[in-house]
């Protein structure tokens, strides 16, 4: 019984706790965190259950209030959306466990509001994933974006400025999207995705549809930070507090990427955007630009979080490339990378957070081998995640690259193939730069005397360490067992691929 209502329950759990948290906060502040963690935990469990349920019993189409579409709003819980929901909620759970100690120290006294907004963000993201309605998607995009601006703005001194910039750019993106679906509604008279998918082939030679496709791709592309619409991202990720950046970086842009996939593959249709129009090619070309740009910029950064932010632009490029290839291997690569990158980036941002907590900074130029001695486990997790980012087997990152490589070969896109391979090497450069420092660079000597400074282990508390380690171990498991996941991705494959 409960399973049939899952599509509604998951976002509602978050919405309810977003509203409850301020009330509880007035009554008793110490209950805020448990409520937050409990709702993420239950959402994570529900979404795992939901994924298994959907795989065995098929897609759930949920009509809100019993109103059948196109009048009512439909939620679609199919293999793809249930999979992405599972990834998002699991990663959020780990990040929020990590938040237990770090949020009180980052944001003294503002925890209640912060957790409430986090829940709102997760409402928005889960809603974006599960909804089957274009306008509803817009609403959830706005919910997640607005809460995203707030989560970023509470960070360092320069964070409000970064958040404001994101707000301006993000609003433009959302408006583009709204305009796009306006045209679609105007042409087809429906906002339901399934309906639209059936109607579009009849009317898609109209230039209006083309314009709406462009507007939608650009609008979501801004949310996704696909090159060259990434301008808001580096500052936002850098200045946001640890928990915000560890939440938004791994899953925020991923959900936008998912929305793009959903709209292109399931609404517009593969045939339309890749064969009749060169949209797929353009997306792939921009994605490749982003891969190279992001990697090169990441090499130039001195601050770890900023480096990770640029690296995110590159990694989003991989997903964009997978979408743009519009063939089965590309799709597998994109979906798998969505999962792998969520794990990798979450792990890396948590590491950056651990370093900021303990060492007070995450400045790459100041790192030396005392870091390894003080934080051996944190740095071990970093190393695993970094090797996975570089794409070394048998870690997870290798396999998403492998499928993308097969995808580029299938479509004979040799330049894209070269881009993927070169970017692996660029990743190696900027990650080994840190690994080399942390493991090999002896600390700058104190000028007075030759006394040996004994460096003791000073690892972060276990509530921060364990999520970091789980994520890094997850990368090994995801890599080795990738076929299990890929077999499921075959079931998510849209018609026409």
């Amino acid at each position, binding site marked *: 019984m409960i399973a049939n209502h899952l599509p509604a329950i998951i976002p509602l759990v978050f919405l309810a706790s977003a509203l409850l948290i301020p009330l509880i906060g007035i009554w008793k502040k110490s209950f805020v965190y448990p409520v937050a963690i409990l709702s993420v935990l239950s959402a994570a469990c529900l979404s795992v259950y939901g994924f298994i349920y959907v795989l065995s019993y098929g897609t759930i189409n949920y009509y809100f209030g019993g109103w059948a579409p196109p009048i009512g709003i439909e939620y679609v819980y199919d293999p793809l959306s249930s999979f992405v929901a599972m990834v998002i909620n699991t990663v959020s759970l780990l990040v929020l466990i990590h938040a237990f100690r770090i949020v009180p120290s980052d944001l003294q006294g503002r925890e209640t509001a912060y957790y409430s907004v986090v829940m709102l963000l997760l409402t928005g993201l889960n809603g974006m994933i599960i909804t089957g309605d274009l306008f509803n998607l817009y609403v959830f995009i706005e919910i997640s974006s607005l809460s995203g601006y707030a989560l970023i703005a509470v960070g360092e001194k320069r964070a409000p400025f970064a958040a404001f910039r994101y707000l301006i750019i993000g609003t433009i993106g959302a408006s583009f999207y709204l305009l796009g679906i306006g045209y679609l509604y105007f042409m087809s008279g429906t906002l339901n995705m399934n309906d639209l998918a059936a109607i579009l082939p009849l009317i898609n030679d109209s230039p209006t549809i083309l314009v709406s496709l462009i507007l939608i791709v650009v609008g979501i592309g801004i949310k996704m930070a696909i090159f060259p619409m990434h301008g808001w991202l580096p500052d936002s990720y850098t200045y946001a507090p640890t928990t915000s950046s560890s939440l938004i970086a791994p899953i925020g842009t991923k959900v936008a990427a998912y929305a793009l996939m959903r709209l292109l593959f399931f609404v517009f249709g593969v045939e339309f955007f890749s064969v009749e129009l060169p949209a797929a090619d353009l997306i792939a070309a921009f994605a490749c630009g982003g891969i190279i740009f992001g990697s090169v910029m990441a090499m130039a950064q001195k601050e770890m979080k900023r480096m990770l932010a640029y690296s995110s632009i590159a990694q989003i490029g991989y997903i964009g490339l997978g979408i743009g290839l519009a063939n089965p291997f590309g799709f597998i690569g994109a979906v798998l990378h969505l999962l792998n990158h969520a794990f990798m980036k979450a792990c890396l941002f948590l590491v950056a957070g651990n370093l900021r907590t303990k060492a007070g900074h995450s400045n790459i130029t100041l790192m030396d081998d005392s870091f390894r001695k003080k934080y051996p486990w944190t740095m071990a997790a970093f190393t695993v995640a970094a*090797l996975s980012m570089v794409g070394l*087997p048998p870690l997870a990152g290798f396999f998403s690259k492998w499928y993308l490589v097969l995808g580029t070969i299938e479509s004979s896109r040799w330049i894209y193939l070269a881009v993927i391979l070169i970017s692996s090497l660029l990743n190696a450069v900027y990650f080994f730069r840190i690994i080399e420092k942390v493991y*090999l660079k002896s600390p700058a000597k104190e000028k007075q005397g030759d006394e040996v400074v004994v460096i003791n282990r000073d690892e972060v508390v276990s509530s921060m360490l364990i999520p970091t380690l789980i994520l890094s171990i997850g990368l090994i498991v995801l890599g080795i067992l990738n076929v299990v996941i890929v077999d499921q991705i075959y079931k998510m494959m849209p018609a026409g691929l």
Partner: protein
Amino acid sequence: MEIFQTYNSVIPFYAVMISLAVVPLIILSDKSPNLREFWTIAAAVLKFILVVSLLPAALEGKEAVYSILEISPRIELALKADQFGIFFALIASGLWIFTSFYSIGYVRGNKEKKQTRYFASFAVCLSATIGIAFAANLLTFIVFYEVLTIATYPLVIHKENKEAIAAGRKYLLYTLSAGVILIAAAGLTYSYTGTLDFTAGGIFNGLNLSQNSVTILFMLFLAGVGVKAGIMPLHSWLPAAMAAPTPVSALLHAVAVVKSGVFGVIRVVGFVFGPDMMSTYGLNNILLVFAGATIILASLLALKQDNLKKRLAYSTVGHLSYIVLGAALLSPSGFTGGIFHIATHATMKITLFFCAGAIYVNLHKENISELNGIGKVMPWTMAAFTIGSMGLAGIPPINGFISKWFLGAGALQADMNIALVILVLSGLLNAGYFFPIIHRAFFCEGKGLEKYGEASALMVAPIVITAFLSILFGIFPDMFFNFFELALSVTNNVMGGL
């Protein structure tokens, strides 16, 4: 072509994993070095026994197969102990035993820091090497190949000085680039053939591909495996990697890592493309040019090195290309000689590196110009050095002669006189860069050497044994492990009859 029977067996898997399994034990025994070294030795001996236990069946033409799991749809992470794999695994695991004893003597004699990391990385490297030897398909090969790259890195930078770190960067630059190129090559192969399984005689049978696409694919493969195989111009990481401690240079940069590269070349030539395709598309000529040029240039460069390890490194580059040349000849004798050279070069070169290490630990001398008269203080070491260098120059009855003889015969069989000229020339150059060292050691007067003697027994014993093995396998190439029979049989399978 002989039809192989396969049987399921976990032994190849155990053989790969045993050294990986002791890594946690090595790390946990950080505080008690003797226990820690016990784990290394135990793993080395067990690994060797496991590999040897696969040999009898392989000689009868049965191959042990073990599939670990699926790592890409329809491609499994699978191990197959075929004759060629066992051939390589025997050499790598056998010599690991000697290297382990030698390493203990070396790191203690030299008071190296971070010994635990050293032994742990070494164990991972050996797992990866045996994985490469037993890889049943290209993707499994790539997985272990990349693991080997990463596991070797801590050993290359072991000394943690500027030179070592620079060498580490160079090493990663070359090997990681090669890795991604190999991935591209594997992807292309998969899209052409739908399989990545190594099959004697090639997997492209019956496909009609254009000359350009085959040439490009081959060049990608060549770049992918050629870096570790030290094919010029991709060799320059190897002399730089000599910044590593000598046992690392001995086992990894004379046996495991570089031989994984040439092993890869032979896998590509014999088991991916196959001899027919190699000659139809003229790919063997490409290989021949690279191999021939490398042999001559590396030997010439070796002549000008004064640093002993660097000279040995360039000599390694040259000799690796003997093996590549053997593959490029595409004649049965040449192929056999090339494969057999994997074994012979291993015993000889490891002896030479061991000697260089013993000299370094004892006298702290690295340059050839300082070696006057050391033959008198380190007679055993320098006698072994003499045997090794005579073997590399191709003088009977040392095993280097046999592989060279077959390579020469192969050149005639293939009607490629130029290859024969290269071999003869390289033999002379080998003598040219090795004999002055022997001359200095035994016939020049040294100064200030009175207080020195041989290095510790832990180091001298492996040196003498490997030198002795070089002679033994030179006289009885089939002694103990039927190396020659294996090489012959692999050629049979690839070429289809001698």
